[in-house]
């Protein structure tokens, strides 16, 4: 679009009262009757713990009605209803394998043992006494995206259901390297086996090198104690790696020279590749982005829109995010906010004036290592059709002439109907 046309459209849009998000137009409506009522009476009193406005009660996690159990499975952060980059703790996506344990911090202990000089037990207070680190990191389920894929595409898809198994928080804790030093590593130590205090006594294998690099034993999320669903009182934060290795309700870390090959690193969270091999330890989350506005099941009107979305990569910083307004034929660079931090979510924005013509919009993230998102075809050239994890293909949204936004993915000949299987449960969230 040239500048002249843009200005024309802008002025036309302004005349039609366009600078309004979604449907309904403030410009047309009179001054609402209730608008001044609160100025005539006293408001609510001070209260000890804040609640969001009663009018925001529909901003909730999405829980699929198809789940067979709410003790295992996942729910989604409502991406298109959130702004900025921090996911409110109450809306952080969930994934558990045996429900959320209720851990009393007075009874909480963390034990480090195995190939160490001194097996040690820490109370919560002990952990808080160590030097602390606060960093913003995303956590993403390896199954994120699984649910965004259907062939033919699901016309009821929202940004939440497509990519809501990611959340971004400020985490505070003690670097695991400090605790390991405290216990003293024995020669030959290579692996850690962290264990959760949930009914699944969830375990994984974590290479020592990563632990010594940037892993946190976290006790706070966004400034307050970690939420029970996120691992209260203590969890691992393993920056950039799949969520399932970031063991919650952490009670024990065994230091070993071999990995455990637990159920959740063999039967689940392994990738089937296009050549039929099964890949183990696919830990790093590849780059990903999603347009949250305008996105599935929203309706927009002609005129100005700030296209908004989220991008992140487990390989490092997001370097740039591109937007296509013509179904992937051409790409333009979006602006990023805040200045991208390694391994955390960044918001991208692009100023756009919609002329009312049907179009398909997309976003594509690039990280500092030069990785980007594949098209669906490229994804299936590398991963098998029955693979369940790490689907990060570009999500398209189609904007109809009526302003209604729906899934813009194409129907793919020869591609699977869906990733993951109905009735198997698991981390895709919905099947």
């Amino acid at each position: 679009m040239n500048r002249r046309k843009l200005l024309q459209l802008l002025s036309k849009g302004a005349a039609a009262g366009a600078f309004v998000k979604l449907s309904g137009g403030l410009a047309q409506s009179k001054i609402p009757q209730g608008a001044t009522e609160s100025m005539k009476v006293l408001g609510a009193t001070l209260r000890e713990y804040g609640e969001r406005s009663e009018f925001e009660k529909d901003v909730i996690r999405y829980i699929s009605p198809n789940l067979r159990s709410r003790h295992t499975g996942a729910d989604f952060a409502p991406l298109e209803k959130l702004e900025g980059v921090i996911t409110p703790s109450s809306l952080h996506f969930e994934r558990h394998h045996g429900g959320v344990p209720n851990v009393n911090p007075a009874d909480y202990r963390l034990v480090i043992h195995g190939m160490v000089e001194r097996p040690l037990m820490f109370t919560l207070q002990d952990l808080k006494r160590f030097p602390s680190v606060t960093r913003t990191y995303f956590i993403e389920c390896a199954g994120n995206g699984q649910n965004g894929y259907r062939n033919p595409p699901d016309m009821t898809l929202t940004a939440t259901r497509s990519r809501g198994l990611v959340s971004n928080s400020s985490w505070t804790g003690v670097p695991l390297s400090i605790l390991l030093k405290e216990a003293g590593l024995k020669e030959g130590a290579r692996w850690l086996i962290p264990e959760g205090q949930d009914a699944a006594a969830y375990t994984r294998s974590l290479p020592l090198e990563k632990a010594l690099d940037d892993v946190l034993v976290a006790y706070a999320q966004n400034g307050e104690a970690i939420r029970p669903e996120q691992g209260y009182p203590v969890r691992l934060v393993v920056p950039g790696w799949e969520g399932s290795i970031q063991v919650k309700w952490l009670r024990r870390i065994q230091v070993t020279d071999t990995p455990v090959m637990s159920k959740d690193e063999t039967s689940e969270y392994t990738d089937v590749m296009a050549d039929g091999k099964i890949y183990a330890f696919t830990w790093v989350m590849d780059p990903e982005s999603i347009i949250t506005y305008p996105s599935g099941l929203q309706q927009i009107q002609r005129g100005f829109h700030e296209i908004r979305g989220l991008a992140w990569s487990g390989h490092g910083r997001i370097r740039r995010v591109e937007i296509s307004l013509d179904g992937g034929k051409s790409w333009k660079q979006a602006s990023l906010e805040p200045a991208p931090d390694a391994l955390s979510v960044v918001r991208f924005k692009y100023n756009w004036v919609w002329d009312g013509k049907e179009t398909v919009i997309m976003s594509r993230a690039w990280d500092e290592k030069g990785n980007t998102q594949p098209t669906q075809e490229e994804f299936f050239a590398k991963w098998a059709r029955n693979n369940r994890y790490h689907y990060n293909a570009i999500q398209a949204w189609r904007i109809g002439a009526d302003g209604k936004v729906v899934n813009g993915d194409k129907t793919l000949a020869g591609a699977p109907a869906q990733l993951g299987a109905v009735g198997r449960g698991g981390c895709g969230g919905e099947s």
Partner: protein
Amino acid sequence: MRRKWFYLALSALALSALVLAQGRYQIGTPLNEQEVQEWNIRPSILANGIGLPPGQGTVDEGAKVYATHCAGCHGSSGEGGAFTRLVSEPFPITKETDSVDFAIGNYWQYATTLFDYTRRAMPFATPGILSNDEVYAVVAYILYQNGVIDESEPMNAQTLPRVQMPARALLELDPGTQKRFPWLKLP
């Protein structure tokens, strides 16, 4: 007053030099081996069998354990029910196998995982109720149902780590992971 602060600061310095002498903060309570074991109520079973407890179980005994504790959720003989299918043919999956049919015989790569997971997390709503013998038995039964072992083979700390899982042949290390951790080998 000044002087007092000076000495306080000095002793704090000396203290932190002492505390951090070995690069440690001297926080945390040392445990002896027995205390570690008391805390370690569901020990991990490594792929080489380390961690497997004494005891044993047969396929026949396992059939009973399975019927009592597992069939309600996984189907009368492991075919799947309210929850996951546990039984398949003993041939590795192909890239065409529907993932709903992924199960122990065609997808699991280590027999030790089955003991570790069953003792750790099953039965789903009442984990920890099975004895070690019962876990060995139900593991034997499930492996037998998958065509991986003979009916006459009891499972114990010696036999279980030797069981070869068909899908192990398909398992490889992620190439990106291999590049970053060149020393890393799958058991």
